[in-house]
């Protein structure tokens, strides 16, 4: 915390709302280009000194994510179902956002992900569409992200990956037992395993030390700064410019506009719940694929009665979900998967959608273990195991160290009926309308999960698992969603999309929307690399425009 300090009455060049994966990148790019930037973040400013190996705080209390006790969320499957309180959406809520607590999977999208409508065709009941940009438009920015943030991986090892202009800046992380078993099994099955690209340092990089294999990545903040969150990579660079202020505990609830319909700044509640207005020449919303839509809907005015940037009526629509299923296997010898990063091997053999299957969809599949002692005991055991008692206790003593997961990351079709909206009844503890989530799977989402799960089990079988079990594939088994995509989709036609190909609002000329909300399709999950590549690209064009 060493950046500039601005007054709310100072008209800064850019006001960034949200200091997460995208907001951190925007802050760095804009401030190093010489602009004055204020970043408003809902959550606190924590650092590596604040983080702990504390499962009660970080998995049970979900200490680094949104707290539904103060910011309730309601959920319903469809518009005719009653919306009930549930943590249906989960996102990082501190400086660094989700990049602080994510597993750190860092997959680029494939070339086909940007043109699936053309390649695959129409899907009944879904709004499958091409992106207005191609992979080649984004490639330089994927590369920039990988080098700026510090990504470990092995370029070219995945035969299905899109062309890369440069190798990863760091070699892949060493393989764990789950990766070795997965590697052997998938090769035996004629598949193509490759080292997982991870936003975790395999070697020292840019003044940060390499990972020490403590094992506390997913749900946790890294205590040695080896996870390449925006908190430890780009945000310190932004602050060092002396032109960027990161202002935590600042909960934005309205973007204001002037008589010409241009954004003038944003109203927020500070840590003492006082309302403050920060003036700015331009506003960049990076509040994640769920909160961004909610903020735009909250920002309605006489001029924008349906919410800001919403002339298309599509703000909040086409919400896509973090979809996948787990197959788990028990092995004869100890794996001790709790040590080290969660994921070391991946396959993309089943990634691309193929009309011959009779449904739209595909999957990336990885070898992992993302359990900690208590949540493993509660969630990781086979469904036919006892849930308490002497036999349960005995099983725990071997299962925790002898189990691994083969996890699928599957497609999620954009559907108009899936949305983020404002709950008409429930309010948060600031008195603002709560987020209402409406989501159900498309039949093809379910078909994809059903098609993929036997392949996951087949891998475990080929790896020699002595017992195999699986998670459910119902929507309820996929709640909460932590990948928040699609609610301000990108497109060339202002009637069919919310932002243009440079993440600029079609309706408000000085409003950028940069996060997972601009995704047209969900690819096969792991959205962070693409969120950040889009941020680098949006910043590049915003800087060129602002400098004329």
């Amino acid at each position, binding site marked *: 915390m060493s950046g500039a300090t601005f007054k709310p009455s100072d008209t800064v060049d850019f006001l960034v709302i949200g200091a997460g994966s995208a907001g951190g990148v925007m802050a760095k790019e804009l401030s190093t280009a010489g602009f004055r930037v204020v970043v408003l973040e809902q959550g606190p400013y924590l650092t590596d000194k604040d983080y702990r190996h504390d499962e009660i705080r970080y998995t049970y209390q979900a200490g680094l994510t949104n707290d539904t006790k103060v910011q309730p969320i309601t959920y319903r499957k469809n518009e005719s179902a009653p919306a009930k309180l549930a943590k249906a959406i989960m996102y990082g809520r501190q400086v660094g956002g989700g990049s602080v607590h994510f597993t750190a999977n860092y997959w680029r999208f494939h070339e086909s992900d940007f043109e699936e409508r053309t390649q695959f065709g129409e899907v009944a009941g879904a709004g499958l569409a091409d992106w207005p940009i191609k992979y080649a438009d984004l490639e330089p920015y994927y590369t920039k992200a990988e080098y700026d943030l510090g990504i470990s991986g092995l370029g070219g090892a995945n035969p299905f990956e899109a062309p890369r202009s440069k190798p990863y800046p760091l070699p892949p992380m*060493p393989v764990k037992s789950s990766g070795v078993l997965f590697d052997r099994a998938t090769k035996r099955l004629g598949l193509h395993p490759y080292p997982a690209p991870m936003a975790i340092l395999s070697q020292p990089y840019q003044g940060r030390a390499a990972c020490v294999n403590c094992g506390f990545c997913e749900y946790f903040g890294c205590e040695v700064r080896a996870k390449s969150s925006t908190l430890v990579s780009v945000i310190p660079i932004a602050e060092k410019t002396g032109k960027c202020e990161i202002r935590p505990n600042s909960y934005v609830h309205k973007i204001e506009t002037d008589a010409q319909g241009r954004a003038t700044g944003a109203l927020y509640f500070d840590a003492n719940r006082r309302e403050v207005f920060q003036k700015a020449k331009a506003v960049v919303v990076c509040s994640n694929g769920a909160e961004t839509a909610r903020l735009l809907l909250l920002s309605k005015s006489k001029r924008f009665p349906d919410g800001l940037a919403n002339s298309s009526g599509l703000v909040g629509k086409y919400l896509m979900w973090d979809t996948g299923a787990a197959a788990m296997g028990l092995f004869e010898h100890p794996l001790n998967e709790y040590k080290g990063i969660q994921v070391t091997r991946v396959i993309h053999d089943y990634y691309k959608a193929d009309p011959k299957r009779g449904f739209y969809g595909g999957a990336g599949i990885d070898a992992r273990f993302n359990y900690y002692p208590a949540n493993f005991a509660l969630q990781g055991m086979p469904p036919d195991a006892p849930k308490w008692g002497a036999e349960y*206790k*005995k099983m725990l003593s071997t299962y925790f160290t002898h189990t691994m997961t083969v996890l699928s990351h599957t497609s999620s079709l954009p559907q108009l009926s899936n949305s983020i909206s404002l709950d008409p009844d429930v309010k948060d503890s600031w008195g603002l309308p709560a987020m209402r989530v409406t989501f159900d799977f498309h039949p093809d989402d379910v078909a994809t999960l059903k098609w993929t799960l036997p392949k996951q089990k087949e891998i475990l079988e080929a790896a020699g698992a002595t017992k195999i079990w699986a998670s459910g594939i119902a929507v309820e088994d996929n709640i909460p969603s932590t990948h928040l995509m699609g609610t301000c989709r990108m497109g060339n036609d202002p009637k069919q999309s919310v932002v243009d190909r440079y993440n600029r609002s079609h309706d408000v000329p000085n409003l950028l929307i940069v996060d997972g909300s601009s995704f047209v399709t969900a690819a096969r999950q792991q959205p962070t690399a693409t969120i950040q590549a889009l941020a680098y690209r949006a910043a590049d064009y915003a800087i060129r425009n602002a400098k004329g």
Partner: protein
Amino acid sequence: MQSTRRLWLSQCIGIAALAEVAAAQQHAHDAVQSSPPPAFQTLDPATAAEIDAITSQIIPSTDGPGAHEAGVIYFIDRALSAFDADLREAYRTGMPEVQKKRKAMFPDSASIAALTSEYQVQLIHAIEHTDFFELLRTHTLYGFLGNPNYGGNRDHIGWKLIGFEDRMAFQYPFGYYDAQANGDGK
């Protein structure tokens, strides 16, 4: 895809007293830093003994120490005093239901703790599909396997049982198969 999804969903059922809970949450972290308290903060000793009897069947002390020795009941008391203050009501209404069940099944019994182990097991089978039992199980396992700073998992009893070590750093190899692969020169 998150592994603790259903748990979080089940935690979000009740939402009364938002501000009170928010305040409790803010103090929760500080409140749990010291060693276990000599007395209970929220539970009365009689109820605590009854809950302890149930948790001691969830993780029994057969073949080594269980929930009782790990001090799970102290974790539950701390949780209800701080970050799970909103779940006090679930205990306040849940325990009398269990007692009602006990009296129906074992009319001559005085308490859960006084039942034989065999009867305790029968009683738990009768309640194991209730939301309240799922809460007891969740609290028991976080108390047994969570960070010892919260009053449970004394002497790392839970971690020792499952083979978990809490260290700041580990060296490869971690398990049998990566050691084997390295040995192969793979």
